[in-house]
């Protein structure tokens, strides 16, 4: 997770958004809210829980345009509820971008949640 500890959630997202001139900020807000990453008191990333950091990393990977998404154990620190939410969101963004995903996971259940999976 290439999270910057001395930046808060918004700035960690912004530092990725700055790379693209035509970024859709309404999409960023939607993803943030969907992953429950809009806290009342903004904290620096180094003070976030592992689960929050994981959701932040997923959020950052989804806000940019892509044709193939590579995820290395994306749900490792997430509880069941957040895993389901994240999976729904990933599926939605993949469909929107007409993109593929390659991901690794130790849990069989995670493989089945995504719409089309190739088990290796």
């Amino acid at each position: 997770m290439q999270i910057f500890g001395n930046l808060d959630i918004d700035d960690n997202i912004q530092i990725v958004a700055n790379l693209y001139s035509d970024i859709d900020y309404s999409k960023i807000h939607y993803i943030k809210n969907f992953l429950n990453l809009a806290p009342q008191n903004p904290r620096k990333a180094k003070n976030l829980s592992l689960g929050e950091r994981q959701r932040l990393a997923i959020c950052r990977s989804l806000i940019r345009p892509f044709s193939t998404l590579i995820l290395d154990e994306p749900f490792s620190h997430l509880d069941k509820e957040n895993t389901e939410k994240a999976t729904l969101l990933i599926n939605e963004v993949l469909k929107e971008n007409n993109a593929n995903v390659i991901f690794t996971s130790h849990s069989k259940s995670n493989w089945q949640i995504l719409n089309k999976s190739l088990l290796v």
Partner: protein
Amino acid sequence: MFKSSKLYGVVLSRGIRVPIIFSSVSLFIGTFLSIISFFFISFIDLSTFFSEADDIFYVVSKDTKLIHTINKEKLYFTDEDLNQLKNLNGVKNVSKIYTSKFPSRIYISGLANFYSEIFLEAIDNEFLSVDTTNFNWNQNQKRLPLIISNEFLHLYNYSFSGANNLPVLTTESAKFIPLKIEIGSKLGSLEVYSAKVHDFSDRYLSILVPKNFMIWANNIFADEKNKNSKSTKIIVEVDRKEFTDFITLIDDKNYIVQNNKIGISENLKLLNYSLGLLLLISIGILLISFFFIYLANMILIEKEQKNIQKLQLIGYSIREIQFYIFKQSFVGIFIAIAFSIIISIIGLVQITELMNNFIILDNFKIRLFIILFVILALSIIIIYFSNLYIIKNIKKNHKTSFIS
């Protein structure tokens, strides 16, 4: 949300401000001193550092007393006087200075109404400080070569030209001006000669013509009673290391030394060494300040190794990261250089105004422009190599972190 540059500031912010401020301050001092010392050194003939000439040339005359205003004979140097000087320990050569004994005036060819009364002088060619290869004359020659004191050129450039709306002249451009010298006798005969500046000299404050012309012209144009080769002034070449006997005789005979070159030359040498030392110190300060810049960049790249790597992994190019580090390092430095240039120019203008009565500063604007151009060129070279250096180090650290 932050703008990109501010985010960089938060991400890559550790501990380079102190060395950057320190290097900016030392860069300011170094640049300021360099400009000042380099500027003044550019006016000084560096050959004085390496000159092995031990001789000094003195122009000597007899003291003018009230009695001499009636009887001028006492002002002339006799052969006995000359021999006495020649025989002194340390005196290498003595020559009469031949002065014109006829009225003469000079003007630019075609501008006869715009003339100046002058007097001409001549000395043996061996006493001249310039190349004398073509400084000669024969009786069929209507063109006179002139050696003019640099002081006259300065006087023209800084006083006369301004008052009469005339262009300023350099030593080279003055050599191309066609001049006319009109020589007249009290009997009414008038002779006009073309004249050309052969060279400018610092050794002798006068307008010099070839010696054989002066002797010939005095014979032709001077009054009968003045047709002699007596001189009221002589030039003496003295060994710098052995001039005690000469000084003693000057005091004993109450002679007047018109150009005390020894004092000027010693003071000039001391000034040269002081300015040279100042330039060396300022270059030293500049080098230290650039070392601090190097150190600051090293600290930044080393301390922020992980964050730089993260930035690269999320998609930032090396050039973008390098530009931020470069900007962080060089904003202070640019301000320091710009500030020191402004202060230096103001200082130089003030100093030159104060010193205008003591030294003549040729081509002030051109020299200042050259110095600023050199500093700008050096800054660009340093910036270019710093950029390359930052990129190289980021790449090196990137590879190292992946290996480890």
